[in-house]
């Protein structure tokens, strides 16, 4: 049943990506071939949402043209075919991140995945108090005196669900501060994550700073404290080779639309021994065994966490996206994007009045750069770039506490993907160098 993905050994044998190869890749992305305000589109907003190759668009269309049916029910031909491609897609994702098939849960997006963990954990406390479910639930619930730890660089999606979990359970939320250049204070992490810590949630790569966090060190700190680890992989799964087993995290989440897939689908990875005992978050159809008028028994993971009609065409299309990435080779993607990220930072730092957030040029970062332009608001910067056909993100990028920490309310962010050339970066840098003069800053 498993879809055979291209072995990584083959991908490794491919030469590094370069502009010529990227120009060939671009041909697979129809949306990139257009004029915006009379200029060829330069799309540098993949950190917000990425574009889809034809193979992804066709996978979704083919599903609707040939196989559309509800999954996991019905004995007819289409229902069987739809179930097969839906579950094949799960295997493809599992292979992509080094997980087992049963450990991959479909969600609507990464935000839903994080809320799922948050609610499953508070339900664990409720169940344990009533003597319901597996005995191990007694160790998973949280209460007063327990602590949840996050970091100062989190996206709101990896902050607010934990604030609310703390509110529901009486636990306390703490955070690891950052240094001015955007690295986590590891010395403080070792002090803050302690015996009271039950859960440590942090991002793999910052959507604002571009910092790649030292996951293994952070996991080691959590293990010493006996805390569960939740990894926000939204900015890593699309851009570098991710292996959840090697990193030894308990949970990880990521979004389909940031990795060449469609919107409306995300992935939650959870260690099997945890998913097997955790209570569900959403309840209803498709996730039960026996239902009476009084109560219900639930299916094992992953179905236990997939209530209601699933995101079938999106799952199939996401598998096509993952196949595209695997065939290109995640190590090649990572190296190319690092190069683009470094080019952005070096170029931005050379422009008067620009302050780049996060690691300085030469330091590790993913292929994005957020920056402040002295005397010009980010919305004006974005508008100026848009007039030249350049798409970037402006605002707080769903990280208000991080911006407040850096003394800013809004910044401009350029984020690259495997379809961006060095010319894209140079166009962008050339445009940014004209911003302050235009706005008389």
């Amino acid at each position, binding site marked *: 049943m498993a879809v055979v993905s291209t072995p990584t050994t083959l991908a490794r044998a491919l030469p590094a990506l370069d502009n010529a190869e990227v120009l060939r890749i671009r041909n697979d992305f129809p949306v990139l071939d257009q004029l915006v305000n009379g200029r060829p589109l330069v799309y540098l907003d993949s950190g917000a949402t990425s574009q889809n190759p034809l193979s992804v668009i066709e996978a979704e269309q083919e599903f609707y043209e040939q196989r559309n049916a509800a999954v996991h029910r019905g004995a007819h031909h289409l229902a069987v075919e739809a179930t097969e491609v839906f579950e094949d897609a799960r295997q493809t994702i599992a292979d992509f991140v080094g997980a087992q098939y049963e450990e991959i849960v479909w969600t609507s997006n990464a935000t839903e995945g994080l809320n799922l963990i948050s609610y499953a954990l508070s339900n664990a406390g409720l169940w344990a108090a009533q003597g319901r479910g597996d005995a191990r639930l007694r160790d998973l619930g949280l209460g007063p005196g327990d602590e949840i730890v996050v970091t100062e660089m989190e996206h709101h999606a990896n902050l607010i669900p934990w604030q609310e979990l703390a509110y529901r359970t009486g636990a306390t939320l703490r955070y690891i501060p950052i240094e001015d250049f955007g690295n986590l204070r590891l010395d403080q992490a070792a002090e803050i994550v302690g015996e009271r810590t039950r859960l440590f949630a942090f991002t793999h790569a910052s959507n604002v700073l571009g910092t790649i966090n030292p996951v293994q060190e952070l996991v080691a700190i959590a293990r010493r404290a006996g805390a569960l680890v939740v990894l926000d992989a939204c900015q890593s799964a699309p851009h570098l080779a991710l292996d959840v087993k090697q990193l030894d995290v308990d949970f990880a989440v990521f979004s389909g639309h940031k990795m060449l897939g469609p919107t409306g689908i995300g992935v939650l990875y959870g260690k099997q021994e945890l998913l097997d005992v955790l209570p569900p978050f959403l309840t209803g159809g498709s996730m039960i065994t026996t239902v009476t008028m009084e109560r219900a028994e639930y299916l094992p993971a992953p179905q236990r966490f997939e209530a209601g009609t699933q995101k079938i065409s999106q799952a199939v299309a996401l598998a096509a996206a993952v196949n595209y990435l695997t065939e290109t080779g995640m190590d090649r993607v990572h190296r190319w994007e690092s190069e683009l990220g470094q080019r952005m930072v070096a170029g931005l730092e050379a422009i008067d009045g620009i302050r780049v957030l996060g690691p300085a040029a030469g330091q590790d970062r993913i292929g994005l750069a957020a920056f402040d332009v002295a005397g010009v*608001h980010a919305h004006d910067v974005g508008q100026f770039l848009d007039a030249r056909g350049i798409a970037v993100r402006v605002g707080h990028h769903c990280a208000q506490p991080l911006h407040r920490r850096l003394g800013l309310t809004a910044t401009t962010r350029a984020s690259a993907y495997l379809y961006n050339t060095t010319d894209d970066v140079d166009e962008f840098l050339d445009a940014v160098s004209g911003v302050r003069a235009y706005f008389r800053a």
Partner: protein
Amino acid sequence: MSLDQLYQQIILDHSKARHGSGLSETAAPEGASTGLSHQLNPVCGDEVTLRVAVERGTVAQLAWDGAGCSISMASASVLSEMAEGMSVDELRSVISNFREVLRSRGKVHADPEVLGDAAAFEGVARYAARVKCAMISWVAAEDALNQAA
């Protein structure tokens, strides 16, 4: 539409020389009836705190403090310059006209006879994401008027 049609000279001028800015250092005229409003756009962080002082049915002073993009700051400056000396009814009617133009997606043209310098913001109507920037101080003024008048 070109960038220069959006960022007209009047807008760029007012975004730098901000009329009526400095609320905290400006006292309201003695005996005037005042209203204060704070508006925030959570999407971009644009923020305006604005006070209207009304004397005998006339806007005696419109002072504000704010932080934000050039369009939001210029629009507060233009509003402040225009509003002082207007009757409360006149200002309400200008605000309502400004809103109609801004929300029309470019279908309703600005009449300089009615809107004065604020007619320069006509181009903003074509950029749905920026309409709130231009409106923020006008919404604050409307709110403050309701308290003062």
